[in-house]
């Protein structure tokens, strides 16, 4: 069929190097007809997750309410949790620290995802009335068809190939704007993904808020040797442009590319970036949860329960079962002391260790054993 052959050269042309640093213009019409909606495309060359998320938030708050915007970005290795999720329950923070994987919390709902440079994110912002869960996912699936990948949209509005999830989606709606953003696993490190997304406290933390729904995933690399970030971006831009009958390539002024060096972008997102990279947002926005754990010591079986609110411990309780024999005196005193010392501490290993330091300093062996044990549970 003649059509695909005619398309590919055009696609290659669009995927050629995009111009750097066009000025960050406000969204304006890509052609003068007032009937067609305004369309713009932003591409981020920055790999900083907080900058990219802050920019997305800036687009949501300040873009023209009737415009349709495509934003393409990717991050350095980061685990991104949903707005109302619990990082301790969703990911393995120790492994993340070991493997230099950052943590970010986004403002849209949904579950936890792993980002790295082999994963490309797309965001489509649109007027609130134009929002449906499927059109953007279908557009991305069509873009993948152009790249010879048989993708489809499944029941959970994710893009999948062969029953394996390659893209996750989440949505945010405000008064007159909405966005749909999603990931696309092109060539991500899946072993790091699985490792970081598996928390040993998954079953011991009882959390309010949203749990992730796990799916089996695959990289697009398994279906195409030639696909990469720029060809995927080019295909999505092409589909987006086709939908709105306009030009979206390097030469048009409807595409803005920016990177870490763009001072204007940095200024726009500075405040938001700081807000979303701090403890209060990343951990403090966790809905209430209770972490229950227990262990068998030689002298008794000890149960612990830590309730936390806004990332701070609201109630810590260490005890043995009611009908058990009375544990040693040192242990009993330690139970009460730990409860007292941990109140209002941040739910974080180092914070808890430093809160319990006075008790450890007292030297009682049972107290020390219990403190070490509590710290190890976090």
């Amino acid at each position, binding site marked *: *069929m*003649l*059509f*695909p052959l*005619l*398309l590919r050269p*055009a696609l290659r042309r669009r995927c050629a190097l995009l111009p750097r640093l066009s000025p960050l213009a406000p969204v304006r019409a890509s052609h003068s007809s007032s009937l067609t909606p305004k369309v713009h495309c932003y591409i981020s060359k920055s790999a900083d997750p907080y900058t990219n998320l802050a920019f997305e938030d800036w687009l949501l708050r300040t873009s023209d309410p009737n415009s349709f915007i495509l934003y393409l970005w990717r991050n350095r290795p980061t685990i991104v949790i*949903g*707005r*109302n999720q619990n990082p301790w329950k969703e990911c393995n923070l120790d492994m993340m620290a070991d493997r230099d994987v950052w943590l970010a919390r986004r*403002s*849209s*709902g*949904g*579950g936890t995802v792993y980002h790295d440079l082999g994963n490309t994110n797309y965001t489509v912002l649109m007027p*609130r*009335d*134009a929002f*449906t*869960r*499927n*059109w953007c996912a*279908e*557009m991305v*699936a*069509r873009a993948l*068809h*152009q790249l*010879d*990948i*048989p*993708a*489809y*949209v*499944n029941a959970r*509005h994710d893009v999948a190939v062969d029953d394996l999830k390659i893209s996750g*989606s*989440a*949505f*945010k*709606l*405000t*008064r*007159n704007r909405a966005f749909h953003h999603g990931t696309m696993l092109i060539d991500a490190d899946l072993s790091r993904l699985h490792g970081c997304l598996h928390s040993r406290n998954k079953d011991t933390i009882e*959390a*309010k*808020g*949203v749990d992730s729904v796990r799916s089996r995933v695959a990289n697009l690399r398994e279906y195409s040797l030639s696909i990469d970030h720029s060809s995927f971006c080019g295909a999505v831009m092409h589909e987006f442009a*086709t*939908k709105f*009958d306009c030009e979206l390539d390097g030469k048009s002024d409807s595409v803005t590319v920016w990177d870490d060096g763009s001072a204007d972008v940095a200024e726009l997102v500075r405040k938001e970036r700081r807000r979303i990279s701090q403890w209060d947002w990343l951990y403090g*926005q966790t*809905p*209430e*949860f209770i972490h229950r754990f227990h262990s068998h010591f030689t002298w008794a079986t000890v149960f612990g329960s830590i309730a936390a609110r806004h990332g701070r411990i609201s109630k810590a309780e260490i005890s043995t079962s009611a009908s058990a024999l009375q544990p040693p005196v040192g242990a009993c005193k330690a139970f009460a002391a730990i409860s007292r010392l941990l109140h209002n501490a941040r739910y974080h290993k180092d914070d808890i260790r430093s809160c319990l330091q006075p008790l450890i300093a007292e030297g009682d062996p049972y107290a020390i054993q219990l403190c070490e044990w509590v710290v190890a549970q976090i």
Partner: protein
Amino acid sequence: MASRSSNLARLLSRSAKLAAPRAAAASTRHITRAAPRSAPGVRIIRAAVPMQASSGVSRGYSTKSYPDHQVIGMPALSPTMTQGNVGQWQKSVGDKIEPGDVLVEIETDKAQMDFEFQEEGYLAKILAPTGTKDLAIDSPVAVIVENEADVAAFADFSLDQAKAKADDAQPKEEAKPAPKAEKEDTPAASAKAEAPSASSEPKGDRVFASPLAKTMAKEKNIDLAQVKGSGPRGRIVKADIEAYLESGAAAQPAAAAAQPAAAPSASKAAAPKAAAPAAASAGFTDIPLSSMRKVIATRLTEAKATIPHYYLTQSITMDSVNKLRSSLNAAANGSYKLSVNDFVIKAAACALRDVPEVNSSWQGEFIRQHHHADIAVAAATPAGLITPIVRTCDAKGLRAISGDVRELVARARANKLKPEEFQGGSFTISNLGMYGITSFSAIINSPHSAILSVGTTESRLVLDDAAEKGFRAIEVMSVQLSADHRVVDGAIGAQFLKALKGYLENPLTLLL
């Protein structure tokens, strides 16, 4: 004062519920006039809210222990939402709430939304704390009061009391055909102050439907008058809209041209698989209309319905054209390649010059006769049929025509035609010969007054005394002219075809 007027409202609304709708309208007029006069503290609130919000407010009336308050339920922030998770409360107990303030963030099915409250008041009690999961629509989430002083009274307000009140108010809510997000003291007064988004229903013929059903109908472009209601007193509820959709009566006119079968030929094997998940239900796929498809539909329906078509058929011997074509192409050296269609276009242009009545268009009050032959060539693209125009064909040579056609079709397929390149023209040629079609009757493209349908060239045997065997084979192509009888009479159309036949059977006359 406030409690007395709200008691009055409650009593009157109860009677309104029992009465027929018209009667209710009469009594509520009475109420809306009364309330502002007697109780300055109680406002009739006409809130304009975003289409998707429905706050499921049930008014709590004065009781012995608690002052006037409203219990806010989980809103349906989208037509398909059935339950939601409560996120961060953006307001605390005792905070003042202005219309439009975000009360709390709601998450549902991966979508994070802000619940904006559209009235004034003070937050008295939070019934669903942050993190509450899977709360059904209309379940109580908070208590709002009008007076700051009343906030303290709700410290011990419990969920059970709120639930009891909601059940009490529920039958009244059911009977009210209140459009979503209308918070009136009285049921039928809401018919007068309809939110802009619900204004599509005619005032005199009010349709009873739940707010969610109305939103769904609006979103899916369903006429509520067509839907049978199954709720109390014929009220249309969400289930009725869903049943209506399933009966296939409503097509989804979304902007996306989501064609699962549009996968390129390289992934043929995958295309059926891609189509299968998209279909989901038994044996069909609903393909939303692309803008091109919509345009084709409107224009061709209009043409077929309004233009008095008639059809003239002619067979043309193509031997001379074929010979000329092969010799010209042999001399081409790659700079051009002429097709049979190029000859047809040129011949038609010359015939239009000879019979200018066919090169005309009906303009209602007059007929416009064009001086140049701007011929539109029908081209099939994956997105649909489009007719790019080759301008002034009478002045162009075969080579120029061939180049233009090629370039225009290529750009049409890549979706890059400018509007002036496919709008206008005076005549259309549609050639389905490459598909083996022997003859067909095309539909005239308004505002043209004729279209030439070209079929394939076939070999036929004709009797020939001069030949050795008494017969010879000739190449015959069948053409059909669909003409607009308002502009082109039968004889004129016949003359045109005769001229066309003359040019094609003696192609050297194209030089004249």
